C-alpha cells in the first residue's frame, strides 16, 4: 500500500504539480509550435509519452552501468544522453515505418522533432543523473520510479498541450485587439493557464 501511494504521489507530482511545460518552462518551443490543431497536438503527445518512457529507461541504464561506474558521467552526460535520444528516435522511426505503418502515419512526422524537444532530454537526465533539477535535493531514482516519473512528466506534457490547443482553437474566433492577435495573445493565455498550475503548488507537500 505504501508503495502504491508513493508511486501515485510521484506521478501526480510529475504530471500536475511540477508540470514540465507550465511550471518549469521546459519544452515550450513545441508547445507554441504545435498547438495549432487538435490532431497534431494529439500525435505529438502520444509520440512524447512513447519516446520519453524509452529514453528515460535507456539513460537510466546507461548511467547506472556505464557512465557512473567508469567515472565519465560528469563531463560526458550531455553528449551521451542527447545521442541516446537521437539514436532512439531514429530507431523508433525505422521500426514504426516497417512494422506499423498506421502508427507511423499518425506520429511519424513528430518523431524527428522530439530529438530537439528539451522536455525529453530534461526528464531523461533527471531520472538518470541525481540532482539534475534541484542540486540541493539529489534523489536516486530506482528503475520503477524512473518509469513512473517519465510517464507522469509526459502525461502532464500531453495534458497541458491539449488544454492549450483547445483554448487556442477558441481564441481564433475571439475578438482580440489587432496587435495582440496570434502569438502575443497565445503567450498571455499560456500565462493564465500557468497561473492555474501555480495554484496547485504545495499540494501533498510536493
Amino acid at each position, binding site marked *: 500500500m505504501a508503495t502504491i501511494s508513493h508511486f501515485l504521489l510521484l506521478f501526480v507530482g510529475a504530471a500536475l504539480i511540477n508540470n514540465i511545460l*507550465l*511550471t*518549469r*518552462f*521546459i*519544452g*515550450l*518551443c513545441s508547445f*507554441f*509550435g504545435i498547438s495549432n490543431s487538435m490532431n497534431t497536438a494529439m500525435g505529438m503527445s502520444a509520440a512524447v509519452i512513447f519516446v520519453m518512457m524509452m529514453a528515460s529507461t535507456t539513460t537510466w541504464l546507461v548511467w547506472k552501468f556505464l557512465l557512473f561506474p567508469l567515472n565519465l558521467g*560528469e*563531463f*560526458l*552526460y*550531455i*553528449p551521451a544522453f*542527447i*545521442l541516446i535520444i*537521437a*539514436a532512439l528516435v531514429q530507431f523508433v522511426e525505422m521500426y514504426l515505418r516497417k512494422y506499423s505503418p498506421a502508427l507511423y502515419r499518425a506520429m511519424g512526422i513528430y518523431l*524527428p522533432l522530439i*530529438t*530537439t*524537444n*528539451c522536455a525529453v*532530454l*530534461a526528464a531523461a*537526465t533527471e531520472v538518470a543523473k541525481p540532482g*539534475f*533539477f*534541484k*542540486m540541493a535535493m539529489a534523489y536516486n531514482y530506482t528503475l520503477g520510479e524512473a518509469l513512473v516519473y517519465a510517464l507522469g512528466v509526459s502525461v502532464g506534457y500531453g495534458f497541458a498541450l491539449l488544454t492549450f490547443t483547445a483554448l487556442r482553437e477558441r481564441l481564433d474566433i475571439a475578438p482580440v485587439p489587432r*496587435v*495582440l492577435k496570434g*502569438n*502575443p*495573445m*497565445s*503567450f*498571455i493565455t*499560456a*500565462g*493564465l493557464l*500557468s*497561473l492555474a*498550475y*501555480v495554484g496547485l503548488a504545495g499540494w501533498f507537500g510536493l
Partner: protein
Amino acid sequence: MKEWLKVFRAGLSIDNPLTVLMIGLCATLAVSSQVEGSLFMGIAVIFVLVMSNALISVLRKLIPSQVRIPIFIVIIASFVTVVDLFLKAFFPPIYAVLGIWIPLIVVNCIILGRAEAFAYHNRVWLSIADGLGMGIGFSLVLVGLAFIREFFGSGKIELLGATVLKMPTGYAPPTILMMFPGAFILFGFVVAFVRWLNERPTNRKAA
C-alpha cells in the same frame, strides 16, 4: 565586408530569434527572472552559437547530409559541455542559479536552427557574423526581459552580490512578475510591442 555586417544586423532586428522567429523560448522565460543569470546565459549562448556555427561551417563540405543532424548535435553538445564545466568550476553561484538550463542549451532551437539554416550553407566568416548577431539579439531581449522582471518584480537589481539599482522604499513589488505566469504575460506584451514597432512605418503611410 558589407555582406557580413548585413548578416550580423539581421540577427539583431528583422530576424531576431526571440521576438520575431519565436525560437529558443524555454530558456528565455525561465532564466529571465534575474539580470545576473540572464547575462551569463546570454554569454554562454553567444559562445556556443559562434563556435558551433564556425566549426560546422568549416566542416560543411565533409558532413554528409543524411547524418548531418546527429553530427550537429554532437558538435553543439561538446561546446555546451565546455561551458557547463567552465561555469561549474569558476562561477559556482551562477551555475546554481542557471542549473539545468546550461545542459539544455544543447536542444535550444536557436543553435541547431542556425546550424541547419545558415552555417551548413555559408562561408566561415559569414557564419561567425550570423552567430554573433543571433546570439547578441537573443541576449539583448533576454537581459531586457530580465531587467523588467527583476526591477519591477522585486524592487531591486543585484549583480554579483551587490545591489546596483533600487526602487524607492514603500514600493510594493507585484511578485507575479517574478513567477512563471508573469513571464508568459510580459513576453506576450513584449512581442506585441515589437510587432507594433515593426508595423508602424506602414501604418503611417496608410494614414
